[in-house]
């Protein structure tokens, strides 16, 4: 797995997690991730939207236009059942990865 793949995968997982509780628009997702990571993870706007379109094409998330806090229409994303399955799988994979690598990197 290349560096970008890993990054891709992680970004997808973060987005799916963000949408797992409630629908959000793109900026909402960025904010949520920033908050939850205490400003440690900042998703670049430029990488977020292609990822969102890709996940929508693959039916992991669905979109609908709704009214935003600004008063104008915005595109809100919701996670699908397929998306939830993906999230679960990737999370488990991530945990395994960390469990495997941690002893190596954290040992003396």
């Amino acid at each position, binding site marked *: 797995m290349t560096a970008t793949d890993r990054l891709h995968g992680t970004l997808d997982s973060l987005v799916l997690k963000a949408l797992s509780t409630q629908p959000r*628009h*793109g*900026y909402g997702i960025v904010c949520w991730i920033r908050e939850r990571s205490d400003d440690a993870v900042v998703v*670049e*706007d*430029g*990488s977020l*939207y*292609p990822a969102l*379109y*890709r996940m*929508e*094409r693959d039916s992991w998330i*669905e*979109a*609908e*236009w709704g009214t*935003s*806090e*600004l008063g*104008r*229409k*915005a*595109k809100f994303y919701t996670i699908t059942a397929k998306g939830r399955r993906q999230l679960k799988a990737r999370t488990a994979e991530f945990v395994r990865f960390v469990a495997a690598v941690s002893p190596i990197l954290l040992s003396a």
Partner: protein
Amino acid sequence: MTRIARRLSSLLGRRPVEEEVENELAFHLEIVQRDLIARGMTPDAARAEALRRFGDIPSVRAACERLGRQREQQRSRAELLGELGHDVRFGLRQLGRSRGFAGTAIATLVVGIAAMSTVFSVLEAVALRPLPFADPDRVVRIVPTRRGSPLDAGAGVELAVLRGLDRAFVQVGATAGSNGFTLSGGSTPIVVAGSRVTADYLRVFGVHPMLGRGFSDDDDRPGAPHVAVLSHQFWVQQFAGDSSIIGRSMTLDGEPYTVVGVMSASFDLRRYGESFWIPLRLSQEQLGTFGHRFLLLFARLRPDVSRAAAAQAASAVARELATRDPEHPVESAMEIRPYIDDFVKDSGRRLFVLLGAVSFVMLIACANVANLLLARGTARMQELAIRAALGAGRGRLVRQLLVESLALAGVSAILGTGVALLLVKWLATAGPRSVPRLDHATIDASVLAFTACLTVLTSVLVGLVPALRISAPQLEATLRAGGRSTRLAGAGRRDPLRSLFVSAEVALAMALLTGSGLLIQTAVAAERVQPGFDPKGVLVGRVIPSARGYTDAAAIVGAYERIYETLKQLPDVRSAALTSLVPLSGGGSAQTGVDPQDHHMPEADQPNVDFRLVSAGYLPTMRIPLLSGRDISLTDRSTTPSVAVISQSLAEKLWPGQNAVGRRIDALGTEPGHPHWLEVIGVAGDVHDLSLTQPPVPTLYAPFTQTPAVLWPAIQRSLFIVARTNGSPTAVISSVRRALHEVDPSLPMDDGQRLEDLVARSMATTRFNTLLLSVLGAIALALAAGGVYGVVAYFVSQRRHEIGLRMALGAGPLDVWRLVLHRGLGPVAAGAVVGGILSVFTARLLRGQLYGVQPSDPGTVLMAIALLGVVSLVAMLLPARQAMRVAPAVALSGG
């Protein structure tokens, strides 16, 4: 997807992807700006910062647009599949709801599809499938011709020179044809068929034996040890497929033969083909003379040589040969025929005609179902109008209707294939023997592919016109009118389309009926032909004494004389005799030239005459009339002068209008230059030898006691027993066998059959063909009648109001009947006229199969018209009666 989401996403779908991306990115920038401003930045700085954070907006936009378009593509594909799936399910549900319609339509299509699949399956197996040889189109038969007409067989010297033509042929081989051999070693000796072939014969086909080997050139030399190659079916039947058969010995005609090879199952091309091959062992002398013509020549062409080029080369060689032989005319040539043509012979052509006939039935079936769909469609106008109002475009409606007719055709195809499976299986056993590879017919991939294409074609044929008609733009008017208006498209007073379909059906049915009529007349005419003998109550059995113990003529003749004596004394045998060949039994013919003494004829002008070696009493046993002179009697022996009885046509040819008795002829000569004189002692009636539909061949009967010694091996020392019995012929078989056993226990007789069965078999193919075409004609007639009924019934149901009105105003049953007739006869009459013209052309296709009737026989056409007329009138009668029963009040109120 939730309903809301679906609705909204359809709204999304309407918005172009570019716009969507634009809006989304714009929103993001705006909200980021707002946040930055809230944190204290100036609007301009906030905007600049927002843009900076985004990165390369154009490439992001491009990526999003690309992904968005992919999303749209996938979505519309899924939607299409969903729609199709819905259409299919809906179509099947609709069929389930209108059982009457579905049942009729499916039953009709099943008949057509089953018939077409069956015929195609047989055609594929018999004529289209390449033969299981290496490069099968390179295998040819070489036929010598004289003065343009092909000869039955080739001579040894011709084989020798053709073998030398290696610029045209890779291999040239010959077979002496199939003969009966006595296989002994089991409890009773049996007769099996085998062929004597040259060593290169099997190599011509390029097929290697499954076990062991083929023949080597050493096996083919005179004096070499006896070897044999078995056919697969014989190996299984006789030796139980024992794989240790190679090297074992079997006794043929008293001689041991070592089995050196077994051919594979794919080489079993005929159901009753030869069981084994043994080397022909032609001597140098045989390869150097014209002598007796008995070889069938086959060859494999060089890869780069065409048949025409090979024929030229071979013909040149034949002409050169002819100059060396003073006896033969110079006009010699060679024909090169593809092996498959020779193998399939007539059957291919007949099957194509049958396929044509079955296509007619299929078209009639399609026309019927199309009419059914049209009628049904009119009833569904309401439903379709609603759909159109909801936004379904015409294309969508047409697609839905086509999918429905595809579902209909699909169900019919599945059922039809099942029926075809049964039919093919039945044909494999019950079909005529003369059709090669008939038992190889199966429903395989090619047949299924054919059926699939047929199904699609059918659904388009059947469904397209109704679909286009029904989805016509007048739907809105329909909706407003409540869907019950009689002004709907297609429900009008004169519906030309439905009448057109019915006329087409009637025309096709006419063509089929005419064809069947011609074939029925052929069969009847052939049955009426007097064969020239009486086959009823006669047993036929073949005796083949083996070579060992019967090497000289005296021994053979003595054995047969004893057999003759014993047979005459059997209780249930009224009369018995022996003959070398039985008429109409499909056996080969033995021919001789005949030269009258009082006016010498050069060999080229001599008629080709069949000869029979018979015992006394043959003519009375077969009930062949003796027209003048006397029959062969027991006093005609090897020591008395040579005599012969000739057939009437031969007497006419040699001495027209004069008495033949007492004259002398040179025939059955075996040494060139030494005439063999026979005195004509009697003239017998003509006998149909080859088939009832071919003219009798001039025949010569000679006493078997006077047979020239060299002829015995040529006919395998074999004579047939013919016995006219009291009661059933087959009951006598065991006593005949016992009689033979008394004479010599080693003498086998074959199974023994009734002569009438043999004669019936000669007509089997014609009869079967007639039966098939008549069945198709009957089916076509029934379907066409159904079509006529449908149209008239529909007309009646649409005009109920008018009929009720007329009856209320005093019209009687006769007037109603006239109204119905007027409506129904029009298309029928038009169809009959077109059909008559069509049958003139289709009847020509049957030309080769007719006997006693011309293809353009007007009587048959008139009969077909009459039959169609009567059936159509009956079909119109039912709706007419229904119309008359309608109470005027009901009709007036209902409308």
